[in-house]
């Protein structure tokens, strides 16, 4: 057994054990902590499977934002689950066993893990993405070039989904739903946690700087718009948690935040329309810099990643503010 297989199996076994423990746990705060551990081990597995961009995103999104949102939801509802009666467990177990059995039976036809002659690897598009992207675009990180240029329309659709989710959360938990709460402010008592305040204040500019670095460095290493937006939002979540929500909302007023949510989307769609007006098709970045298509692609990818970063950061921050600003009715 090679080292790779050993590490792979160990991490997957840790994941399965964590999943089993989460499913049996009735104390939901503890289950949330284990879910964060789950996401972190998954990020390690992604690195092992050579998906460094995905590992980055999973670590930032799954461990950071997901945990904070779950904790926010738990603080606004009940945090202890009732015992599942036996008659409820049986249908679930039967469905899971049946589906699992079907999947394992069907997986016999799958090509082996890591084989180099699978239909995935031998499709001509692989050569386009890995070799021709160097001539067309010239960016070392092929994941960024595929995400922002070759499959740019998918990314636009996903940005729309993120904006819709942000608007949905604002409609459900925003200030319009309970106007009588308008002046309510939670008294935050973190004045004794001096070390935390000093260290957080020290780290805030570096977190935001790191987000910008990830955004612009996404062409040469793992990174890009999504990771940058999430790290940016994490900085503001930290600020809001340590210094209080009203201070955080004085730094980022609601009007500014809410107008940033559609701004990235409008930038993205605007870029597509501009490239159409310049003679190409929708989101054809070649036309952005006449005479030098590679430079046009660079410019287009930069603008698209910036648009994604702006929208994702604004959506995640406003979702956190909505959860944190909601007064618990318990």
């Amino acid at each position, binding site marked *: 057994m090679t080292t790779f297989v050993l590490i792979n199996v160990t991490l997957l076994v840790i994941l399965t054990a964590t999943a089993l423990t*989460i499913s049996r746990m009735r104390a939901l705060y503890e289950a949330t902590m284990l879910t964060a551990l789950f996401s972190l081990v998954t990020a390690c597995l992604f690195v092992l499977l050579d998906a460094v*961009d995905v590992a980055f995103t999973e670590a930032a999104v799954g461990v950071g934002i997901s945990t904070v949102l779950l904790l926010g939801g738990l603080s606004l509802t009940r945090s202890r689950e009732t015992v599942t009666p036996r008659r409820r467990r049986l249908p679930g177990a039967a469905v899971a066993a049946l589906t*699992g059995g079907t999947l394992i039976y069907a997986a016999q036809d799958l090509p082996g893990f890591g084989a180099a002659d699978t239909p995935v690897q031998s499709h001509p598009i692989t050569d386009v993405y890995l070799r021709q992207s160097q001539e067309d675009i010239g960016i070392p990180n092929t994941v960024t070039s595929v995400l922002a240029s070759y499959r740019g329309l998918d990314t636009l659709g996903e940005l729309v989904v993120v904006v819709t989710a942000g608007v949905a959360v604002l409609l459900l*938990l925003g200030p319009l739903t309970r106007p009588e709460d308008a002046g309510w402010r939670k008294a935050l008592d973190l004045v004794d946690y001096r070390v935390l305040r000093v260290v957080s204040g020290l780290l805030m500019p570096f977190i935001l700087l790191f987000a910008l670095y990830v955004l612009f460095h996404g062409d040469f290493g793992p990174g890009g718009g999504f990771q940058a937006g999430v790290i940016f939002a994490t900085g503001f979540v930290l600020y809001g948690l340590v210094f209080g929500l009203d201070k955080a909302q004085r730094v980022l007023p609601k009007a500014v935040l809410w107008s940033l949510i559609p701004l990235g989307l409008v930038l993205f769609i605007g870029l597509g329309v501009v490239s159409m007006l310049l003679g190409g098709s929708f989101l054809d970045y070649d036309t952005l810099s006449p005479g030098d298509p590679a430079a046009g692609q660079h410019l287009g990818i930069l603008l698209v990643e910036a648009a994604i970063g702006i929208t994702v950061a604004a959506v995640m921050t406003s979702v956190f503010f909505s959860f944190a600003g909601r007064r618990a009715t318990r």
Partner: protein
Amino acid sequence: MIRSHYVFWLVFALMMIGLYVVISHGNLLKKLIGLSMFQVGVFLFFISLGKVDGGSAPIISEGVETYSHPLPQVLILTAIVVGVATLAVGLALAVRVFEAYGTVEEEELLERDQDEATT
């Protein structure tokens, strides 16, 4: 067979645990946690399809010949962000359900709805 397919079987086990939690447990928040476990299983399955033995991350650099496939990674990157967006909406809905009914347990919600329907 085991040598070449062990990853897929372990990942299917993860997916099934998540599916079981979504179906069997009544607490809405626990269902959301189970859903995110199921999603992670799907992501791992997808990315393991793109991996090549002896390859490296699909960032073109000097001296590397084989790269793992970038397309599954692009699709999963999108899926992760969409997953957390739906988690946010699901949690917001659970909070509103709690404020309206006083509980997030599915059984109690159904009882309360049926009581209101009959009275």
